[in-house]
């Protein structure tokens, strides 16, 4: 069930009405309803993988309980690694097995035959999101940062909460679990904000991302037929497409959660306003960045007694390659991670007099220069991210240096570019808010507000392409 579908609208109205009819006084019943709704929501994608979510919930719930009752360090480690092995194992089995098999085969020159591919499975939707969420729970319990829950129903709700189940934000147990444990009361203002955020998310997805997607597909389907400018422009448009697609989804997820009295973490802070790549990762998919920082980057640094510059470089590169691989089993994602890692390292090298690093220098130079720097790298990253395979990435890279200019670049997306421009203006003008429609009543009277909503709804219905899935669902 896609967020941008009639089905989801219908589903949401029904669950919302039932949830508040049950009422805040019957929290357990509300949780049962949310769990059922979440399983129905996921089951409509593919009911066969419901068992996997349930098993993940069981494994990490039991691991958490076992960790709480054991004081023996080595036993605790066994439980932790058991949980991690399960989660990584599930991820590897469903997401990376074919990739490693294929590369193993080509490395050792083993001929491909029809029956060699014995594990050609579908990747369960949202697998990387919920396994990371459950893994963080066990690690936090192990680190004594949180107390394990004793309530399996609440834990299952935490793992499968439908607004953020298939594409995040990746919530931590310390933030989300207590919300299932405590009473939720209906908040009129929050519910209003929730609806506004859903509307804004739909605008981003349907009017910006999907329209940009058509142009981007044209470029990346036949890169050999385009020149340098068109390929760079296509990559730039993809940067905005994936931003609007993913952050649009996140807005709908956060808005939906608000309707049920939940608060989810912010996942984007206008990433295209970044000055450096380090800043970009603090503004883009924030919950994933924090996850990797807490559970990969810092543990690598803490693994040695002394933190040397080499260890820092190693930690950054490894973390970023894993961030790339998290997105998918393809060398393009490895390259995406590696390029990011290298740039993050470069930004920390003290190139300048008095030992100043590039990352800091970028904030002192004229904005136009840092703008060129950031978007140059953003285009490179987007190109790797969007390419169908590594061969295509290198073909495009090669074509960038042919200096072969295209004359028809403006016709690639045409007038629809105005949606993107409108979005950028709205976001930049309201950059202190979580989304541009937030607290709209402060500045606009009701008739004007409603007019804005109606215009947005009209445009969304008018231009909605049939069945456009969200890009991040595949991760």
């Amino acid at each position, binding site marked *: 069930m896609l967020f941008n579908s*009639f*089905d989801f609208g*219908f589903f949401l109205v029904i669950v919302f009405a039932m949830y*508040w009819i049950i009422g805040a006084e019957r929290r357990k019943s509300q949780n049962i309803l949310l769990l059922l709704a979440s399983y129905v929501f996921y089951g409509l994608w593919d009911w066969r993988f419901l068992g996997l979510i349930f098993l993940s919930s069981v494994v990490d719930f039991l691991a958490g309980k076992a960790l709480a009752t054991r004081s023996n360090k080595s036993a605790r480690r066994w439980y932790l690694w058991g949980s991690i092995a399960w989660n990584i194992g599930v991820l590897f089995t469903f997401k990376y097995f074919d990739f490693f098999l294929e590369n193993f085969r080509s490395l050792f020159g083993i001929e491909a035959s029809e029956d060699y591919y014995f594990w050609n499975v579908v990747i369960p939707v949202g697998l990387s999101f919920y396994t990371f969420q459950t893994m963080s729970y066990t690690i936090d319990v192990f680190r004594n940062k949180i107390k394990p829950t004793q309530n399996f129903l609440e834990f299952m709700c935490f793992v499968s909460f439908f607004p953020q189940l298939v594409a995040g934000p990746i919530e931590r147990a310390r933030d989300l679990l207590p919300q299932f444990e405590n009473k939720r009361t*209906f*908040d*009129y203002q929050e*519910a*209003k904000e929730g*609806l506004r955020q859903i509307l804004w998310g739909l605008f981003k997805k349907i009017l910006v991302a999907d329209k940009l997607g058509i142009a981007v597909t044209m470029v990346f*389907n*036949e890169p050999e037929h385009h020149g340098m400018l068109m390929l760079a422009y296509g990559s730039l448009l993809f940067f905005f497409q994936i931003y609007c697609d993913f952050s649009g989804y996140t807005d709908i997820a956060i808005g939906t959660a608000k309707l049920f009295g939940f608060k989810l973490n912010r996942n984007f802070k206008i990433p295209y306003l970044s000055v450096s790549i380090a800043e970009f990762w603090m503004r883009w998919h924030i919950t994933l960045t924090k996850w990797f920082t807490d559970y990969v980057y810092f543990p690598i640094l803490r693994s040695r007694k002394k933190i040397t510059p080499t260890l820092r470089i190693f930690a950054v590169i490894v973390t970023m390659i894993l961030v790339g691989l998290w997105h998918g089993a393809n060398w393009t994602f490895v390259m995406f991670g590696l390029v990011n890692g290298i740039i993050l390292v470069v930004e920390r090298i003290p190139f300048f007099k008095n030992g100043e690093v590039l990352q800091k220098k970028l904030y002192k130079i004229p904005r136009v220069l840092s703008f060129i720097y950031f978007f140059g790298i953003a285009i490179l990253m987007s190109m790797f991210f969007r390419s169908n395979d590594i061969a295509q990435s290198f073909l495009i890279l090669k074509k960038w240096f042919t200096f072969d200019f295209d004359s028809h670049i403006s016709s690639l997306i045409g007038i629809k570019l105005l949606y993107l421009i409108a979005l950028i203006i709205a976001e930049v003008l309201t950059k202190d808010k979580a989304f541009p429609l937030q607290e709209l009543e402060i500045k606009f009277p009701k008739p004007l507000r*409603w007019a804005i*909503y*109606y215009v947005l*709804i*009209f445009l969304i*219905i*008018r*231009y*909605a*392409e*049939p*069945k456009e899935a969200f890009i991040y669902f595949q991760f």
Partner: protein
Amino acid sequence: MMRKFATYCLLFFIPVVLGYGIAEYATLRMPSSFKANVDYLEGREDSFENLVLGSSQMRQSVNPEWIQSSTFNLASGDQHHDTDFKLLKGIEDRLPALKTVIFEVSYSHFEIAHNGKDFWKNNFYLKYYGINNFERNVYFKDRLAFLANPPYFSERIVQYYMDGERKEVYNAQGFNTNAFYGQFEILGHDVDKIAAMPNFKINREPNLEVFKTNTSVYFEMLDHLKSKEYQVVICLVPMYKTYHHKKHPDILKRRDSILGVTLKEYDNVTLFDLERDTLNFEVTDFWNQSHLNPDGAKKYSKRLDSLLNTLK
């Protein structure tokens, strides 16, 4: 607070629902091939001997008016073999006199992805023909017309209600006799201007994965047609000469090889190949590089009629 929220939501969404209702009504009021087909079908189901399937090329090439035996044209824009097959299975029991099934195999039919179960026209197959192509239970929204493809119908509503000259005019057999206005008419059927057109819609991307899937469904359909003892006519519709230059040789070679296998293994199949017929089909018979206009359709349908007479 909850009541206030619900009241405001209700008040807010009333105009949205009303607006949608107007769009739905406007969509349904426009003439369409689906509506024209249903009018033609009703009461005549026992008499149809020929069933035409395929995409817009077949839709615009076969005018049943010029075919002596009773013919029902179920082709529609973008309709691929998987949808053809589902439609055939959904309607054949209602056509007891059916003898011949006519469908197309265009140059790139085997290397363009199938429609799948989410094809937007499924709403219309359900609404007008009662055929469920969704491969699941159907719901109220599956019968909504405007919602099936809002950008397309928004444009059509504007075109239809503002631009009277290009209105679709369907004959009694459900064929649009006013489909002249196209790229070629815009260029005044000027051969030089047409030859100078830099781009037009043609698939030049070989796709072996799609080829594998499509040929499998294609042979499954042929097996079904043989088991039901239907005569089959596979059409290669005329294309304008500039179209042929842009074909990808590998796609073409694979298509022709499949057709060769078909003729060898299915004795109920006849190939009706006018794809390169430049003698009978002139520039004025074309709507664009790959579609005929109603004049071209008249010629094509008459030729098809002659063939059908020989199959009796």
